[in-house]
């Protein structure tokens, strides 16, 4: 069986801002249909690397290929319509109702999104279609991020990139929305790259975890392999946190059982 052509390929990507090197040479390719988590501590360069995909950041040297084409040769506006983008700031346009926020990508492409399609997208992220008429400031944080996801999906993108998408949400909302996104990924056959600093989230949602440290990729493993001890010291120090939490929770539970 031949390996499928990568949808996304980083080719010697280096990003420098003045004297600071945020991304120090990344080579990596991502196959269509995969759900990749990009994990690292703050300042490891993961967000910068992600933003080279939709050219919000331009690499100092190196190339990013999207479906075989160098993204720097594509018109930014056209590229970004093919790449759904969800980020921690959500960035709903406060002067547009929810429905218009969702429809903005197609609208920029000169296409009017039908109300039924907007309703469908809202239902996809488990929101009442009546939300279409509401203004963003009338929504809770979790609801806003759901709208953010719906907006990213409205243009039927080939690739979904997410930068700390659930970072500002409470744990319950965060877990629910994470699962929802994974479910959508499977149902819609998306390719997804998600940046997160939370290894537990990465392990639970992704089928491939990339670990970044000081601008370099230091591990590229499946969640199972990481839990099995692969990936090296940095990756293992990140995995240690949720593992230890899980063990302590299990111990607490065991203690409770023995008492009863």
């Amino acid at each position, binding site marked *: 069986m031949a390996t499928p052509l990568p949808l996304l390929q980083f080719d010697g990507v280096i990003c420098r801002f003045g004297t600071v090197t945020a991304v120090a040479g990344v080579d990596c390719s991502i196959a269509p249909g995969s759900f990749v988590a990009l994990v690292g501590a703050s300042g490891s360069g993961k967000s910068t690397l992600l933003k080279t995909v939709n050219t919000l950041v331009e690499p100092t040297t190196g190339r990013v290929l999207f479906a075989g084409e160098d993204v720097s040769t594509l018109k930014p*506006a056209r590229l*970004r319509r093919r790449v759904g983008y969800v980020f921690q*700031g*959500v*960035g*709903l*346009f406060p002067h547009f109702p929810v429905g218009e926020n969702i429809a903005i990508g197609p609208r920029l*492409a000169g296409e009017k999104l039908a109300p039924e399609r907007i309703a469908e997208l809202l239902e996809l992220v488990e929101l009442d279609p009546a939300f279409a008429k509401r203004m963003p400031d009338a929504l809770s944080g979790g609801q806003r991020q759901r709208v953010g996801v719906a907006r990213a999906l409205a243009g039927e993108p080939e690739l979904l990139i997410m930068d700390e998408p659930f970072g500002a949400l409470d744990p319950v909302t965060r877990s629910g929305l994470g699962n929802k996104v994974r479910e959508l990924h499977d149902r819609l056959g998306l390719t997804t790259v998600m940046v997160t600093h939370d290894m537990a989230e990465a392990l639970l949602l992704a089928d491939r975890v990339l670990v970044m440290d000081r601008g370099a990729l230091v591990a590229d493993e499946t969640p199972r392999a990481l839990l099995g001890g692969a990936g090296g010291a940095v990756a293992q120090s990140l995995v240690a946190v949720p593992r230890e939490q899980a063990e302590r929770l299990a111990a607490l539970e065991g203690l409770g059982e023995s008492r009863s």
Partner: protein
Amino acid sequence: MGDIWDILPGLGDKLAAHVVLSASAIGLAMLIALPMAVWASRSRAVSRITLGLASLVQTVPALALLALFFPLLLSLRSVFGDGLPTLGFLPALMALTLYALLPILRNAVTAQANLDPGVLEAADGVGMTKWQKLVLVEAPLSAPFIMAGIRTASVWTIGLATLGTTIGQPSLGDPIFAGLQTQNWALVLAGCAASAGLALAADNLLWVIEIGLAKRSRTMTLGGAAVVALGILAALWAQSTGSDERRIVIASKQFSEQYILAQLIGARLEAAGYAVEYRDGLGSAVVHSAVASSAIDISVDYTGTIWTNYLKRTDNPGREVMYETIREWETRDNGVKVLGRLGFENAYAFAMRSDRAAELGVTSLADLVAAAPKLTVGGDPEFFERPEWIAVRDSYDLNFARSRNFAPTFMYNALQSGEADVISAYTSDGRIAADKLVVLTDPKGALPSYDALLMLSPRIAGDAGVVAALEPLIGAISVAAMREANLAVDREDAAKLTPKAAAAGLARKVGL
């Protein structure tokens, strides 16, 4: 002050001119400031330079800024030709536009700087081009703040537009300046009330638009904008009607005599069937050039003023030679027709209380030489810097104990109270007669003459009808008659007259 209600309805055309001027200045300032703000938001250096320049403009006093455009436009005539207006609407518009830039620019730049970075990232992230981002995101989100800047600019501009009067642009400043000069407080109040009312109305309307933009209420935004547009259209309409044929424009400088003579000239022209328009309260410096450029058609100027200020002469060849020289120069160099001398002088002269003069035995400047070292001389604030004073001082070798500056009104009070023994009076001033002052003769002819001249612009110099209507004024007005009319306007008691009534009285008195 019941008469303020009689004055207000008559201010319609001034109000219309005021609205058109202010709206044009704000509109132009927006056209300049908004693109500049967009540029400034993309570059820190541009932001610093544009805001710095706009702030610098604010430090120039408004009156000076308005006046500075006159020589500037005059020098630009070498590029754009003589058709370029140097007075009136154009310089007023330019000065007010410069003033309006700062609040609009500053609010727009601040609004852009304070936009939510998440929203801006989203705009890029969803694939907006720079233009789409500006139109769909940055502009609508900045709009309420920009509108607040426009509101500030509007209130400033409407207030400052009253100063347009001094450079010949009709505005609500006309009644204010006329009233201040003739101490007609009802006129001042009417002008201030109308301009303040206009500013408040504009502020409130723009506030409705601002709230509409902030609350994203189309009804409020468009409703407010519609009322503003209607107001401007009504002012434009009011201006366009009635000015279909060019009227004869009569200037007056900022003192009572000028207001009275303008009314006298106007009444005669109206009686002869001409439509006239008064441009009252002009800065003294601009009147001469305004007539030469036909921006104004008729003015009353004085030989001594033209002699020293425009011919730059310091000698005194005598009254007749001065008059003939000026008359020739005006025709040859400016195309201005000096129709003739009205018959009186408004010269600088030295005046004393009659009892004091008798006591010292003084009737002429020559008599004063011996007494001067014990006396105090009073003058208006510029007098002791003027060539007239220097000429008198040097030719008589006058050596006063002290010299003091007084505002013209207080100069006469100082004479009465003994704080000054001699003052520099104006010979046609009504207070010379009212206070029974003695005007000292000038045997050496050190003071130039200040014959009042009737000046006609090149545009109407050849109009036989105008000349026929005004010719009877030549040589008709004695200094005594002029003093009486001036006093009638300057006095504070019940006998106080408006310049128009005083002009009618003057006409009767001299048998016209």
